[in-house]
């Protein structure tokens, strides 16, 4: 005997990380801090995004982007990193794919590098400390 009725949840909203067809947006996180990578990953996966890959410097980020292309919708790119910095990596990714959606992750005080990044083709930027609202706002602004 059925004792419980399932009502449709009319308040349920579609997570931000899903496309119209229900498939997740795929994100590459490029950051040398394990903490920041985890923080961005947690915020995005909780909204349905898929973390397609992570890289801990700009060079690795460029290689990962080429490897994932075209199945990558967005990149979050730290500015200060060893081996290859985020601005150089951005420049090389944009050379490879001029439509790349790249968001720069900046510490305070790097306004000059943020401006340079925007001129080089970054779509947006976020100044640390990161929080859920700030990250999702900028990500959705970039993907729309």
């Amino acid at each position, binding site marked *: 005997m059925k004792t419980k009725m399932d009502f449709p949840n009319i308040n349920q909203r579609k997570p931000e990380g899903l496309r119209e067809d229900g498939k997740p947006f795929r994100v590459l996180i490029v950051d040398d801090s*394990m903490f920041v990578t985890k923080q961005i990953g947690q915020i995005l996966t909780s909204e349905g995004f898929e973390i397609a890959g992570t890289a801990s410097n700009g060079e690795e980020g460029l290689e990962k982007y080429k490897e994932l292309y075209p199945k990558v919708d967005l990149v979050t790119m730290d500015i200060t990193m060893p081996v290859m910095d985020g601005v150089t990596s951005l420049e090389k990714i944009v050379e490879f794919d001029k439509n790349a959606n790249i968001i720069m992750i900046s510490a305070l005080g*790097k306004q000059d590098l943020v401006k340079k990044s925007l001129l080089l083709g970054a779509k947006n930027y976020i100044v640390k400390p990161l929080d859920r609202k700030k990250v999702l706002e900028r990500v959705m602004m970039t993907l729309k």
Partner: protein
Amino acid sequence: MRVEYINPFVEAAFNILTEVLKTEVKRGELYLKSSSMPVLGITAIVGLAGDVEGRVLFDMAENTALEVASAMNGEKIEKNDELTKATITELANMITAQAVTKLHEIGFQFDLTPPAIFTGNNMEVTDVAIEALIVPIQTTFGKIEINVAIREKK
């Protein structure tokens, strides 16, 4: 040491800690130390070089570091592992970046080293040629000391 060097660090520490820990943060009385002093257990150090030179330490007991890392990661962290160190490094990065922006705005130009983390018991720090100012910051997770030793380059 001129107090104008330390105020940006105190303000930045207060702002960032309040924002990332989402808890009450109180500034203690600033004090001066010119000889060796013990460090608390987990310490992030950032070097400065340019118009001014020296270093800043962010010093806390291991338990405090674990509580801070837990709050910043949104999960209980029980040992001082790579994630704890990465989290404390990021905290030092954020505070230093905000402080340095203020110092640059008032005309001091200098570069920073990436933070390094020291861990251990019975450690002490000695600044032979620079006096250090210490600002204890009290949080619900324990005390964090901001220890600044900066001088103008001759």
